[in-house]
């Protein structure tokens, strides 16, 4: 049991409320506003969103390049620039991810959800099931959640928690090929290439990873918009202000 401490100006109701926050993804009792996403988490979220956009677009054009450029080779550097943006965004993405892991340790407990997969928690799985039923139009009324709902956490853990790590590891392994044998990228991540078989297999898996993240992004944006309209709590504004507000006071 912890007490919710609201930042100045963020709370609409000043009464500190006891909530079941130690239980992951526990439905919320009655209160109006909670400070959920701290500044580093929000900053990371939007930088990461930008990185993923740049990485997916440039990555796609690295795999399937644009039509041939006219003129002298020396007058063009299109692939070079596309690859530069891919690598630059990849570094931001990777450093951001490391920072985000750090924040999971020092931030509030919501910051840990992205990296947690409570596989042995039966209660959590039942909540996943309830949330799945809500999306299948089988539940009349959704539950309230301070952090991510369990289904969202499940998707986020695999697509962003595990997915980012996978893309960073395979990405740096491929980058190490260009950076040449003996570079720190090669020394740290070069083992990935024989693990997958050969370079082409790593490329293939890196592409598949991109599509998994794209699928996640599609579902994530849709679910965020839909939940913002149809659930009982704020969603999109929460990732801007950090504060979760609720539309009703009912406890269940």
């Amino acid at each position: 049991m912890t007490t919710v401490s609201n930042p100045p100006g963020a709370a609409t109701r000043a009464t500190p409320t006891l909530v079941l926050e130690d239980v992951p993804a526990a439905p919320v009792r009655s209160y109006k506003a909670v400070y959920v996403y701290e500044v580093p988490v929000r900053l990371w979220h939007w930088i990461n969103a930008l990185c993923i956009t740049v990485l997916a677009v440039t990555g796609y054009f690295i795999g399937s390049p644009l039509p041939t450029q006219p003129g002298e080779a020396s007058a063009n550097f299109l692939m070079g620039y596309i690859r530069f943006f891919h690598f630059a965004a990849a570094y931001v993405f990777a450093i951001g991810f490391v920072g985000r892991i750090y924040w999971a340790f020092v931030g509030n407990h919501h910051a840990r959800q992205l990296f947690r997969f409570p596989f042995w928690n039966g209660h959590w799985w039942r909540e996943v099931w309830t949330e799945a039923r809500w999306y299948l139009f089988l539940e009349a009324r959704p539950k309230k959640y301070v952090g991510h709902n369990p289904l969202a956490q499940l998707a986020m853990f695999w697509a962003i928690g595990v997915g980012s790590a996978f893309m960073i590891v395979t990405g740096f392994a491929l980058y190490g090929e260009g950076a040449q044998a003996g570079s720190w990228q090669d020394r740290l991540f070069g083992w990935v290439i024989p693990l997958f078989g050969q370079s082409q297999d790593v490329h293939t898996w890196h592409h598949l990873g991109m599509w998994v993240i794209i699928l996640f992004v599609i579902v994530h944006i849709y679910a965020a918009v839909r939940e913002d309209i149809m659930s009982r709590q704020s969603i999109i504004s929460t990732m801007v202000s950090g504060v979760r507000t609720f539309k009703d006071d009912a406890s269940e």
Partner: protein
Amino acid sequence: MATLETFYEVMRRQGITRRSFLKYCSLTAAALGLGPEFVPTIVQAMETKPRTPVLWLHGLECTCCSESFIRSAHPLVKDVVLSMISLDYDDTLMASAGHQAEAILDEVIRDYKGNYILAVEGNPPLNEDGMFCIIGGKPFVDQLRKVAKDAKAIISWGSCASYGCVQAARPNPTRATPVHEVITDKPIIKVPGCPPIAEVMTGVITYMLTFDRIPELDRQGRPKMFYSQRIHDKCYRRPHFDAGQFVESFDDEGARRGYCLYKVGCKGPTTYNACSTIRWNEGTSFPIQAGHGCIGCSEDGFWDKGSWYARLTDIHQFGVEANADRVGATAAAGVGGAIALHAAVSALKRAQHKGEV
């Protein structure tokens, strides 16, 4: 063979003058990227060290490695080091045959126990107790095990010995198996390629004979001096890649101008080999220079990675042959459609319950 001769003694016996011998030492130093101060070291080694015989076995293979090898652009290296002084057994190249040839194997194993190099071209098929490849009336795998037992080191010539190559491609009916999966207790140098470049083969052997140690290997057991870079890294068409100038289809204007072959499936960016530096047939050309993309023949399992003109591996789990991008785009379209449908139902539901929550 009562006493073990040195390299130098054997060379002199073969009629090589001292002058030619010294020239050979300088050439070897240059070929291995060593400075002139290493020439006396090589001379010293050749004069004092007993020669190291090489036994060259042939398993399940097409002999393209040997075909490549005998076209080495540096005949001095090939003839002197291998034909004359070191290559004691190679059933394809040697003069003797039958029992006489097989007797040489036993003789070398006995006289040079633990001190000869075993070069393997092709690989052993393991199905049916190895009956798919019979040498001298016995399964090749038995011969391989017997000769490997007392070898100092093993060279896996070509993609067959290194990775399995075409005979190990799905479904691999004979269970052709790369050498390192059969012989696990010896240092193995993989020299992949279908075939490997002649100068790479002679270079590896020369290094081992002169320095009496195996060359530095990368994670996959390939000599770093020839396999540490991709075709792409040293490709003379690389500027067109960086500029974004591609051959869109064979015979188009880009192909005539010699643009990058990436979009017609060149596997140079995923293939480790020395083709773009050493080239083939006395440095005349290599596939990309001839206008065709690299097919990645020196990479593990290159027969099973889908088309030679595709840069992504085929994914067979979806029934039809598809690659990562096709699978991903299909899934994205499917999820997009499902979301549109879901959104429509959600809107209807919401309209039904308007004002309730």
